[in-house]
């Protein structure tokens, strides 16, 4: 373990305009992202050897095994297709499937697509079918499970609730400012710390402006071997490392304050990428933050600051746009959450940053970026490191 196979490059990314997309059908939403990625990379479907697709569970899609329904929109007819699904971390898992495919030597160019049309489904109802009947009354639905985890984290490290509240509000303000720089983001609004701290309570301590929206959207990324990338792409981004870990099904079976799956996934990715001091070596991080408190926990478990100290670092501005390691300049999940695509959007944004293509969101001189996603019953974490150099 720890060795990388053939070098893998990102040669193109494409996203839809995210938000409530009543103007297009679900397959047309997917087509929009795929058209964008081909325009970005300057190649066509004929150049693609294989396809990977992912979304949330069938119940949320309205069609079971929706890779069948999407086959034509995905341009997958007559091609090999894998359908990887790991709940919220699906976006990163499909990227990693594509990366392994190229690294194995069995494909030179792989198209990876993630999508969600949340306004045509019922995300929370679907999430209520993840816990079994025993745990459902306690942890059903994302806000309940994740608020409970936030409280566990504050209790475990004896973090002052007012301090954590302020730090979470800063995360929200920074993300919403990022969203204003991102023309594709779903939520585009200016918020203040006071507005976040006084917003309507969802599940204590989480308030409305601490929570992501339900978005329609799709993302497509093209991965290629070194030879192909050098031929096709003027400035490819390179996959430097990847990790994935999952924890036991029952929430009580693992410590969710010192989140081993996040730590494990990050450590594997850092080892492959040769990163020993992530806060210093990384230039930008796209962290999966459907809830602001989560981002604080991730900063710790991804090794970006010491355990229990994320609120201090955030209040000091370390992870703000002009800080040492800007987090979520795209606005993050807090401004756009089309779940099956979300983890892949993190990777796409990381690739755009290291290739200098992030426009108004660009972190000056970014060379090494982290992308991350989380899923399951607070169970799965995936990390992929993208760099400007091979």
């Amino acid at each position, binding site marked *: *373990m720890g*060795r*990388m*196979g*053939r070098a893998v490059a990102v040669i193109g990314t494409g996203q839809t305009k995210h938000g409530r997309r009543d103007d297009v059908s679900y397959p047309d939403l997917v087509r929009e992202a795929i058209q964008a990625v081909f325009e970005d990379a300057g190649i066509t479907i004929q150049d693609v050897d294989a*396809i990977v697709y992912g979304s949330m*569970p*069938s*119940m*949320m899609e*309205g*069609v*079971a*095994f929706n*890779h*069948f*329904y*999407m*086959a*034509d929109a995905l341009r*997958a*007819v*007559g*091609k*090999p*297709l*894998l*359908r*990887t*699904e*790991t*709940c919220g971390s699906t976006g990163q*898992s499909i990227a990693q*499937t594509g990366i*392994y*495919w190229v*690294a*194995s*030597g*069995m494909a030179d160019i792989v198209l990876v697509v993630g999508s969600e049309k949340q306004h045509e489904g019922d995300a929370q109802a*679907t*999430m209520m*079918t*993840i816990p*079994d009947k025993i745990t459902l009354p306690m942890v059903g639905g994302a806000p309940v499970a994740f608020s409970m985890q936030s409280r566990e984290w504050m209790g475990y490290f004896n973090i002052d609730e007012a301090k954590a509240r302020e730090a979470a509000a800063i995360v929200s303000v920074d993300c919403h400012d990022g969203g204003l720089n991102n023309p594709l983001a779903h939520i585009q609004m200016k918020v203040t710390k006071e507005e976040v701290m006084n917003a309507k309570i969802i599940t204590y301590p989480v308030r409305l402006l601490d929570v992501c929206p339900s978005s329609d959207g799709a993302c497509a990324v093209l991965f290629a071997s070194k030879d192909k990338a050098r031929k096709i792409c003027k400035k490819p981004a390179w996959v430097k490392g990847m*990790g*994935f*870990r*999952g*924890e*036991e*099904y*029952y929430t009580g079976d693992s410590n969710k304050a010192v989140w081993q*799956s996040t730590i*494990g996934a990050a450590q*594997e990715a850092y080892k492959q990428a040769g990163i020993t001091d992530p806060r210093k070596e990384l230039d930008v991080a796209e962290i999966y933050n459907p809830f602001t408190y989560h981002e604080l926990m991730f900063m710790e478990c991804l090794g970006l600051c010491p355990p229990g100290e994320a609120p201090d670092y955030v209040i000091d501005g370390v992870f703000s746009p002009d800080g040492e390691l800007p987090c979520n300049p795209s606005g993050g999940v807090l401004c756009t959450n089309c779940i099956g695509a979300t983890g892949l959007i993190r990777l796409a944004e990381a690739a755009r940053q290291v290739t200098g293509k992030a426009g108004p969101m660009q972190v000056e001189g970014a060379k090494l970026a982290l992308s991350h996603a989380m899923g*399951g*019953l607070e*169970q*799965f974490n995936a990390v992929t490191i993208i760099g400007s150099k091979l």
Partner: protein
Amino acid sequence: MRKVGIVDVALSPGVGSSLSLMEFTYKPVKEVLDKVGIKRNEVDAYVMASSDVFHSGLSCANSFDIDATGAFMKPMAREEGDSIKAFIYASLRIMSGIYDTVMVVTLIKGSEHPDNDTLTSCFADPFYTRPLGIQETTAAAMQKRLYQKRYGITDEQCAKVVVKNLGNALRNQNAHIKKRVTVEDVLNSKKICHPLRAMECAPKSDGVCAMLLASEEKARELTDKPVWLRGFGSSMDTFYLGDRDLLNTQLKNAASMAYKMAGIKNPAKEIDMAEISEPYAFQELLRCEELGLCSQGQGGSFIDSGATQMTGSLPVNPSGGVLAMNPYVPRGLYRVAESALQIKGQAGEHQIDKKVNTALAHGSYGFCGQWHGVVILGN
């Protein structure tokens, strides 16, 4: 590219199990680890195949499956749909050089689900085709009519597949359906959807298959009888049935990719036995044609010739196939596992008489097989 070996496999029985989904999953996984003589922490990565729609009412299937498969705190992913996808993905992980051992686990408890026709009707789009009552059985009925009309395949020839496969299943301890039947029994069984009869359709079964894959060096270290992956291929078809020629499917494309990778030029001669997914009896005949095991339109005379019998020149489904046991998601990996056991000479009472050097395994799902996967194994 690194070589991939199958170290060992374990399979559960297909009849409805009284075990909970977790215990049911755990048993074959533990069995493989014990057979190989390694512990969970020596397995580098896991790839699962289980499906939200076929998963006892629990979405995000791997959320639940992670405990019993032993995948917690390991690099892990899950494929949705036929389990041959998980086999392919696990192989890619080994070929990449990043991992040396990958455990593939696929699971289902069909006995806890609505029937397959109800679940597969959800593959149809909700606006245009689902209201028409389309599901895998009604789609297969259309495919069978076309097959009979275009090539003159008879009901008797289709029934012979059932007689052969259920006959083979009598010797398979894991098989779900065990009964000796005649062509007359099949022809006299109830019409389900013209021209399909009840006995021509697969049951709905439970099933768990665990398989340990390893790099060449590691496989040789872990077993005296590694089975080697020689080739694989897969292909997707277009969504709407009306846009396809139902007798000219993507199986041909998937097979040609697998044969090319394995260096097989004449499959009918070079392949010693095949495990083919045949949820509907006639599909075994059609798929033999598309795999190039016999000529196009000759599937009927192929079964008449006896070639595909246990003792024939090219036995097909010596395990009894999907007609004898249909764990929907795992059925593809069952085909790979049964083929591997035949090569190892460890298939037990349904081991075929001749030596198996090269075997073919096939998986398929969706209306008339919208996705096909083909795997070639060798010794």
